[in-house]
């Protein structure tokens, strides 16, 4: 789908980064193009995904939800059961292995909720790489347990105090650090965003989700699903869930954006619903921004979706009408979080609960012989205290 020469998805993508990094992203592109088809590399990565991360992840038939909601047979792709508790491990094992092949001794990464930071710190520990994680100061306070987790894994955590002190600023600071130490450092970008070749690399490493899911659903149902759903911030678990279904025209691809307090308020993070085209963080895509082209401060209860942009391949899939993107509010996500816990006994990440919320709205639109798959991108332990606070319950972390 990408224009191989310039890393474009239609008009989106590109490499809008300082000259200091250009040589490095070209080197990364060359290395990736070599190793992605290299049998030894793929053997090594496959073994790590199987023996260390616990793949393939389960495709679980949510029978009680199906009976309760009526309509489509609902399946959950259980990325929450992976090692480190989310889909992020799929990408970081790939990138850290690639970094080692490139001769890098150090990795850096941004993190919002801490899922990608913990995953990167984990892979770095396993593969013997020095690791530094950049996290907005506000997020280090909201997710202090994850900060300590990363430190336990041997990583240094830098609290970013610039700008809004959240995910966007963590990305800014990681990019700045990369320009300082590009010679020995690889930037393990956590989503399908940033300059080419990152959207492609991250999308490829995450596509294991839909590759497995497609096989699993065909085995279980004997036919393709009518829709697949995933939450979208930058969009890595969604791209993982969509990729191998893009060619199956009958499968609806549905991305659920964080609408925060509502897309008609100023407190949301819905780049497709309310953003405009722009160029930021190395890519052309949709961004929440003001009338002067300043990147807007965004908001979501979910730190992992609290990002003003969306990956360029999603922008493209939206424009050509192949994928649909819908807004889901904090309220809807929290109530879906509770619903899934009570109905199926699964405490999912608040991010993933955005997708669960949407199936509650649309399950009835499907016939009982149709199936849908929701990507349950992460587990919810990290969110329990925040949900309690949202409900006015004071728990000690």
């Amino acid at each position, binding site marked *: 789908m990408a224009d191989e020469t310039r890393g474009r998805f239609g008009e989106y993508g590109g490499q809008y980064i300082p000259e200091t990094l250009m*040589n490095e992203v070209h080197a990364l592109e060359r290395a990736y193009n070599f190793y992605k088809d290299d049998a030894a590399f793929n053997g090594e990565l496959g073994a790590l995904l199987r023996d260390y991360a616990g793949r393939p992840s389960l495709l679980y038939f949510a029978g009680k939800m199906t009976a309760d909601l009526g309509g489509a047979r609902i399946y959950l792709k259980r990325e929450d059961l992976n090692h480190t508790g989310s889909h992020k491990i799929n990408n970081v094992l790939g990138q850290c292995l690639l970094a080692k092949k490139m001769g890098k001794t150090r990795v850096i990464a941004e993190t919002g909720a801490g899922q990608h930071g913990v995953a990167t710190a984990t892979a770095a520990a396993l593969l013997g790489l020095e690791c530094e994680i950049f996290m907005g100061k506000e997020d280090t306070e909201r997710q202090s347990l994850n900060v300590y987790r990363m430190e336990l894994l041997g990583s240094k955590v830098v609290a970013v105090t610039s700008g809004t002190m959240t995910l966007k*600023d963590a990305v800014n600071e990681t990019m700045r650090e990369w320009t300082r130490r590009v010679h020995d450092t690889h930037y393990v970008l956590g989503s399908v965003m940033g300059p080419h070749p990152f959207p492609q690399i991250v999308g490829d490493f995450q596509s294991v989700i839909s590759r497995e899911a497609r096989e699993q659903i065909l085995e279980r149902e004997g036919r393709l699903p009518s829709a697949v759903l995933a939450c979208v911030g930058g969009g890595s678990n969604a791209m993982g869930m969509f990729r191998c279904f893009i060619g199956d025209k009958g499968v609806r691809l549905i991305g659920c954006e964080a609408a925060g307090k509502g897309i008609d308020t100023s407190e949301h993070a819905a780049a497709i619903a309310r953003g405009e085209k722009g160029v930021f*963080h190395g890519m052309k895509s949709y961004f929440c921004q003001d009338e002067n082209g300043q990147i807007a401060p965004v908001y979501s209860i979910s730190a992992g979706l609290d990002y003003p942009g969306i990956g360029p391949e999603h922008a493209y899939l939206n424009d050509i009408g192949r994928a649909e993107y819908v807004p889901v509010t904090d309220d809807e996500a929290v109530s879906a979080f509770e619903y899934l816990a009570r109905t199926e006994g699964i405490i999912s990440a608040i991010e993933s609960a955005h997708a669960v919320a949407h199936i509650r709205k649309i399950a009835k639109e499907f016939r009982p012989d149709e199936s849908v798959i929701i990507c349950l991108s992460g587990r919810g332990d990290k969110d329990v205290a925040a949900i309690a606070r949202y409900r006015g319950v004071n728990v000690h972390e």
Partner: protein
Amino acid sequence: MFMSRIQKAFEGGKAFIGFLTGGDPSIDKSLEFIFEMERAGADIIEIGVPFSDPIAEGEVIQAANIRALSGGATVRGIFELVRRTRQKSEVPLVLLTYLNPVYHYGYGEFFAECELSGVDGIIIPDLPFEESGEVGEEAAKRGVDLISLVAPTSEERVEMIAKRAKGFLYVVSSMGVTGVRSEIVTDVGAITALAKAASEVPVAVGFGINTPEQAAELAKCADGVIVGSAIVRIIAEHGGNAGERVYGYVKSMKEAVGAVR
């Protein structure tokens, strides 16, 4: 033969290029500081267009961006600053802006406004050579030089970039972001020599330069020296009263640079 204001700036020996963030602390004060820099001998003035997320800047200029935005600075306000400077001065003016505000304004409208107000050149740190086609064309139509950058990592790219350079070629002296450095450790001489060999336009070095001694040293291998964070730091410390100190600092820097043959 027609000579642009930027070309003329390099005619009288080594050039000193001074930077400030437009609207820090206000547009009126920026106007005053620009005239102080010109009076102190600055050959080109670089005006930073404030942006919410300046990824190539160190802490000093990041903070200036926040001060300017908090003070209500907008792209339109920066054009107003340029217009008011032009009413009294022929000093070459170069805008430094991230791409999104330009994209959002519309490339055509943005460069039309540049021409009308009197902008001579533009530097866009997140627009590398490979992505610069459309912006470069729109700028050229309006007689605005899109100024290219080369970095310590650009060794294999210098020739390609230098051949198409307009105005002057900006050599980034150090890895990383803008900001004062006590010493510049990269072999800036080597990359500058490569740039000069391939470029038909003058070559100026920036990033990390603070003292007259550093400036004089770098002026030996380049046609000009660019200083940003050190000036912005004076403005940060003294706010609206920084005028005289900006004048004094720029004068000492210009003298050091100008003495190099």
